[in-house]
């Protein structure tokens, strides 16, 4: 699937009737302001069954806002969001903060999503290799383990569409590659669509069908190998990003701690 040309001026109503049955989610000409600042400008995209769409862009580019609009958690100022009727979404937020006063084992956390299907729970734990964490407190596991637990929670809804806000956050580099591989396998196995935010295009390249480079508006989009050579992408991320795959440096306003954890300075 491709992104509809953002300059065309079809009416908003058409967003609900132009889609093939395999389209899970479509956004049409989304605009969103915060404090009179335009965060999202004329964003259109579609996600189909089995398709992996990756959002990249600098901090503050509106990635999380776009994801929240796509989820229906946030109303756009203008534009329309289409969800296929009865669409089941699995959502993995950027951050989960559990109050220290709230005792919660990994197992109990996962049961919040689905209390009935014990077999599904046990299979998901096995697939994600987190069975050993079951009895541990959610606050006691590492960042990488937490990401897997969150992914498991999203999967327990048997989603047709997975929406993942920086799934590799706090995961070391080797673990990141593995996690993206896992997401790609999940998408293949269950034929579910994926919309995810990533910081690192090169790590997701092999497991993504479509890349959208976002900086309030869509700078460029397409197959990953196309995007890496697009002038808009090079302009946003610097020529190094494309030339040097091994020592890829961000030009973002955050830094990495030992072990790859992201220390954010500000956030959208």
């Amino acid at each position, binding site marked *: 699937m491709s992104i509809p040309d953002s300059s065309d001026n079809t009416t908003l109503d058409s967003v609900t009737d132009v889609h093939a049955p395999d389209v899970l989610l479509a956004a049409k000409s989304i605009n969103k302001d915060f404090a009179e600042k335009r965060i999202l400008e004329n964003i259109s995209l579609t996600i189909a069954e089995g398709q992996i769409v990756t959002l990249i862009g600098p901090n503050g580019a509106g990635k999380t806002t776009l994801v929240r609009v796509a989820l229906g958690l946030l109303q756009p100022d203008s534009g329309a969001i289409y969800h296929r009727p009865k669409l089941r979404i699995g959502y993995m937020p950027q951050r989960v903060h559990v*109050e220290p006063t709230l005792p919660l084992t990994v197992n109990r956390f996962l*049961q919040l999503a689905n209390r009935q299907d014990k077999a599904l729970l046990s299979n998901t734990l096995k697939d994600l290799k987190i069975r050993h964490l079951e009895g541990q407190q959610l606050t006691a596991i590492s960042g990488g383990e937490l990401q897997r637990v969150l992914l498991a929670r999203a999967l327990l809804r048997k989603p047709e569409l997975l929406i993942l806000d920086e799934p590799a956050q706090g995961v070391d580099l080797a673990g990141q590659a593995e996690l993206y591989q896992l997401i790609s396998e999940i998408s293949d196995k269950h034929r579910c669509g994926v919309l995810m935010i990533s910081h690192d295009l090169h790590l997701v390249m092999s497991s993504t069908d479509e890349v959208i480079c976002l900086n309030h508006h869509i700078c460029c989009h397409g197959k990953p190998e196309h995007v890496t050579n697009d002038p808009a992408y090079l302009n946003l991320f610097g020529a190094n990003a494309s030339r040097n795959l091994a020592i890829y440096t961000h030009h973002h306003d955050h830094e990495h701690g030992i072990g790859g954890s992201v220390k954010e300075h500000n956030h959208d």
Partner: protein
Amino acid sequence: MIDSMMLFFTTNFVLYALVAGISLALVAGPLGSFIVWRRMSYFGDTLAHSALLGIALGLLTDSNPQLSIILSCLVFAFLLTLLDRRPSISTDTLLGILAHSSLALGILVLALADSVRVDLEAYLFGALLTIGNADLIWVLVIVSLVSIVLSVFWNDFVSITVHAEIAEIEGVTVNRLNLVLVLLIALTIAVSMKIVGVLLITSLLIIPPAAARSMASTPEQMAGRASIIGCISVVLGLISAFYFDVPVGPSIVVVATLIFLVFYFYPNVLKTRN
């Protein structure tokens, strides 16, 4: 000693007090746990203080006191939820203003309505030993209602508390259930007034869960153990109030606090080696 103990437990008013206190403690465990997890204790305080205004207005309009307390708690809970959505002023400042202004206003109205003599102390600190048939029925009805709603929506309430957005994506009606939870807290506070009084209600709700925290690894364990600690506090509080001839409400709260302190400083006191 045995004889006086028998007398204590078979005296009618003590029996009433025990039943009312224990049933409230049972529901206060899970409800209070939510107040702790969601950092709503100031909210509970504000509701409790505003209940005094409800009593005053009830007396002025000559309506059923219990009903006017319940109504005013529900109305205040609803108003506070609305105000909370307008972030022009920080929530704790807003609650601080409302808590004390409604308390002050309530006391003033009670003082001005000099046609009726009210035992202000009973409302401020509770008068568990004076509760009668009608009071007991109110407590039992409200407690049953609150327990039923809590158990039906338990998983959803916990899910919202852990992460509201995931819950919403999973199909939980977050805003509606948040309001329901607030109303349950309001109802419980309204009927607890007679037991521990306006000034001490929140402590009955939050001290047992806080004491139970170190012994729990799931939300259900914490809620259940908080109920048990609450019941023990009510029973020991009543007994000591009876023997030392001191007010019941404060005794219950002091017992609960002592239990909290024990578990706070010796979290493993009940753990056996296995």
